[in-house]
């Protein structure tokens, strides 16, 4: 800590103090020193007056900061508020703090020692930056910052003299290490009768003043608490343009979790809804949302303010948020501008179309088309019964999608790092699905009939048509699940990064879309006439449709191989063979040696379960495989590590990250057709781009977190991290040209 110049007022006080000490020798000698010092100070003051108008201030240098008191005008006018600022010039790599320091730190303070009659306001804070410190986030300043303060001289101040304004400034300056630091700063200004001229610092002060948070004019703000998050809704003024990425900085600590990503969506009304995760250490009453919102492109309210002040009451209630995951350096502060802006209406429409497309997926098409064809043969059934059954089917589909969404939202709220495709990240689920598809395919191939295996089922489903229809809906979603992950992972992942209501809306739309064709067919008998007449060809079609299911089994076996190892695939295939044998034995039990065959079938099923058992304990297997995979360097691609990305970009090297998974078909297509092309690889090499692959085949919290930082929740995602700039997101369907164009921005 360094002290400022010796101050005459204190010297006078020193004199008085020591005079009161009485006539001791020590007192007298101190008195002499004090007198000498005040004489020097008087001489200095005289010199200042002699040189007249030039304001007198000295910058105080400490280890990492240079501090100075500056004013907008070169003089003080009695009774007229003067704009001053504490200017901190901070060494590169170090930072000081905003009024709310974020996860750690301490705000800068100013304590004024003013001449009598003067008053000073509090610090007017320019908007901070979110500064990542490891996995934590601080709110503060780098480089140069001006802390604005209004000082008002008394109206009866006599012009002609000088006034010295002094303050004690204290701040915490941190890099890796933190240093509490401070300085005594002072500024001497002449008192003038009229308006004073602008000072050298006037431009800088003007700029700082312009950067201050503005009132939110034209726009409307409202806030609603929703459990562990708060939705801050900003309704734009009529003429407002797209504000781009928005970040909210709360005034109070313990309200909003600093390191958790804030997500932005545009809803159907055109409002911007910013979701703020509630602090895990909720502190005090959170019933108002007060702070500063900063928009990348400004709020376009006339002055195009980049920062606006928000202070609105909050409806609803909040609960403490999930513990922040502090595993990896956060890349989340620099989510690409506007990346998350997608209107809810558009997302719902896309989901509806996506649901329709699901009917054509290889895993769903065989089952649903046969179900649709069965309607053609039911012309004589009561029309009302068919309609209700169609609705029951739709309800089954939608309810299952909603259940999946709820499960996912709950898991994520519990702090689990899961995203869409999570159902395929567990080897146990992949193996179960492979078995289910195999059995369905055998059924279509004619190896067995469900009615012969479970004689009760056929009768039950005839008696309970609606329940049967609803269960078909559930089954349809289950068999669709391996296809939603590869083809719709990214879209659903986006939905999951939104508010609960938005997530549910998207999933409901998806379900409605999927159920629509069948439900419409059951509703409009006229449409059914367009279906071909039933006949012997249906049996052949059924057998033919078994093959897409077999193909799905083959693909799931490959996914399992990528997740675990070759042994797991062998186990799965052995299980499938035994299952096929069991079904064959049971089916033939009607003829001849019935009991023996039935016993054989049951023994075979038991054997299948024994063989398959390790697959259901597959998470442990996957971890073992993950350990060996983590160190594997495949064809010049390094395993993804957020810390390494930061290190490389800091060293000036761009990094391209391929967020991928074995079960993601789009990912595989992009890899084969674009990323592995010789010319693309050459382009990467030319620009010295480090290549990293983030393999999300298995659950990986570090990858999920990095994805969330990019406002994504599924794969594929392609990102080019550029030194000193925001990361560049590439489209999900890659083309050679897009990669080349992205590299051209380096």
């Amino acid at each position, binding site marked *: 800590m360094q002290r400022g110049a010796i101050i005459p007022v204190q010297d006078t006080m020193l004199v008085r103090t020591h005079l009161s000490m009485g006539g001791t020798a020590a007192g007298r000698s101190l008195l002499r020193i004090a007198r000498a010092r005040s004489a020097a100070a008087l001489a200095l003051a005289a010199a200042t007056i002699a040189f007249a108008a030039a304001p007198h201030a000295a910058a105080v240098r400490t280890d990492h900061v240079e501090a100075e008191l500056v004013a907008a005008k070169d003089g003080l006018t009695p009774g007229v508020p003067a704009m001053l600022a504490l200017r901190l010039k901070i060494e590169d790599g170090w930072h000081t703090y905003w009024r709310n*320091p974020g*996860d*750690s*730190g*301490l705000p800068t303070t100013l304590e004024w020692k003013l001449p009598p009659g003067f008053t000073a306001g509090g610090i007017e804070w320019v908007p901070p930056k979110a500064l990542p*410190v*490891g*996995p*934590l986030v*601080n709110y503060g300043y780098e480089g140069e910052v001006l802390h604005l303060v209004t000082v008002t001289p008394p109206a009866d101040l006599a012009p002609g003299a000088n006034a010295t304004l002094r303050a004690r400034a204290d701040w*915490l300056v*941190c890099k*890796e*290490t*933190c*240093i*509490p630091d401070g300085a005594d700063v002072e500024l001497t200004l002449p008192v003038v009768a009229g308006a004073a001229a602008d000072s050298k610092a006037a431009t800088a002060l003007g700029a700082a003043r312009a950067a201050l948070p503005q009132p939110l004019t034209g726009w409307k703000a409202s806030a609603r608490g*929703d*459990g*562990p998050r708060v939705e801050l809704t900003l309704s734009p003024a009529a003429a407002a343009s797209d504000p781009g990425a928005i970040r909210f900085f709360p005034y109070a*600590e*313990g309200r909003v979790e600093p390191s958790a990503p804030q997500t932005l969506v545009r809803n159907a009304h055109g409002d911007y809804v910013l979701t703020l995760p*509630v*602090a*895990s*250490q*909720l*502190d005090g009453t959170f019933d108002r949302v007060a702070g500063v919102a900063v928009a990348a492109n400004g709020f376009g309210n006339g002055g195009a303010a980049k920062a606006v002040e928000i202070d609105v009451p909050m409806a609803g209630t909040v*609960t*403490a*948020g*999930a*513990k*922040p*995951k*502090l*595993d990896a*350096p956060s890349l989340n502060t620099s989510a690409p501008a506007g990346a998350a802006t997608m209107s809810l209406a558009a997302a719902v429409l896309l989901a509806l179309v996506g649901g329709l497309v699901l009917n054509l997926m290889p895993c769903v098409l065989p089952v649903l088309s046969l179900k649709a064809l069965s309607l053609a043969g039911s012309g004589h059934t009561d029309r009302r019964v068919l309609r209700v059954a169609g609705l029951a089917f739709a309800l089954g589909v939608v309810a299952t999608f*909603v259940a999946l969404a*709820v499960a996912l*939202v*709950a898991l994520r*709220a*519990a*702090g689990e790092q899961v995203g869409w495709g999570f159902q395929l990240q567990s080897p146990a689920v992949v193996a179960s699905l492979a078995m289910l598809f195999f059995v369905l395919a055998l059924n279509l191939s004619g190896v067995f009939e469900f009615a012969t295996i479970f004689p009760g089922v056929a009768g039950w489903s005839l008696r309970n048509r609606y329940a049967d229809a609803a269960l078909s809906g559930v089954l349809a979603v289950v068999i669709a699940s391996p296809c939603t992950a590869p083809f719709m992972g990214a879209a659903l992942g986006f939905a999951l990064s939104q508010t*609960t*209501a938005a997530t*549910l809306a998207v999933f*409901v739309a998806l379900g409605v879309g999927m159920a629509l064709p069948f439900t419409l067919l059951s509703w409009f008998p006229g449409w059914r006439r367009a279906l071909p007449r039933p006949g012997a060809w249906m049996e052949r079609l059924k057998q033919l449709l078994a093959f897409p299911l077999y193909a799905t089994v083959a693909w799931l076996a490959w996914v399992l191989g990528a997740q675990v190892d070759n042994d797991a695939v062998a186990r799965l295939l052995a299980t499938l063979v035994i299952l096929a044998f069991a079904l064959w034995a049971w089916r033939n039990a009607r003829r001849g040696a019935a009991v023996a065959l039935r016993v054989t079938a049951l023994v075979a099923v038991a054997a299948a379960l024994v063989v398959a058992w390790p697959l259901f304990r597959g998470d442990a297997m996957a971890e073992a495989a993950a350990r060996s995979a983590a160190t594997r360097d495949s064809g010049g691609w390094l395993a993804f590590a957020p810390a390494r990305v930061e290190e490389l970009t800091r060293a000036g090297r761009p990094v391209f990250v391929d967020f991928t998974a074995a079960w993601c078909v789009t990912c595989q297509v992009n890899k084969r057709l674009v990323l592995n092309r010789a010319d693309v690889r050459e382009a990467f090499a030319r620009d010295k781009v480090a290549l990293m692959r983030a393999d999300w085949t298995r659950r990986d919290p570090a990858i999920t977190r990095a994805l969330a930082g990019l406002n994504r929740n599924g794969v594929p995602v392609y990102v080019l991290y550029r030194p000193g700039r925001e990361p560049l997101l590439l489209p999900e369907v890659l083309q050679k040209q897009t990669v080349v164009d992205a590299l051209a921005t380096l």
Partner: protein
Amino acid sequence: MQIRSWLRGIAMVAGFCAAAAGAQTPGQAAPDFTLTDVLGKSVRLSDFKGKFVVLEWTNPDCPFVRNHYRTGNMQGLQKSARTDDVVWLTINSTNRSNGEYKTPAMMTEWIRTQNALPRSVLIDGESAVARQYAVKTTPQMVVVEPGGKVIYAGAIDDRPSTRPDDPPAAHNYVQAALKEGKSGVAVAKASTTPYGCSLKY
């Protein structure tokens, strides 16, 4: 209409689950951990069931931590913990890869020069326990009751500063939580925003 109320029901259930899962540590079981102390002995939190336990996250390079030691404030709390049969565990979760990491020998020396009196000084070089407790700063404090539940988590006191005159004058949350916990009343301030240097993950 029915479907809408049904959906709202689901949303509420989801919200409830989320709230229950997201609720912060006070009132919840303290995550168990095993760490090695500076003398090479293994220390497990659950071994202290039946006693009050204070977890103190420290970093000798942090001026906020130093302020509580140079004023004798931390040592005072540790001393009264000792007399009251409260287990005091000082944890350094500075990551091994960070420049501020201290070896067991360095920590032993520092504790000795500070005349500190914790039950054990634990080294968490992978910052794993800090992650378990979502620790953000040093100093940061957790108080666990004899049943193993967290009754306090957050700052050491209500004066975020590095000024020596603050710790003695501050309202000490840990002291208050221990007092309330021992007399069987609910802890008035069970969760606060921790202050200090960022934990070096």
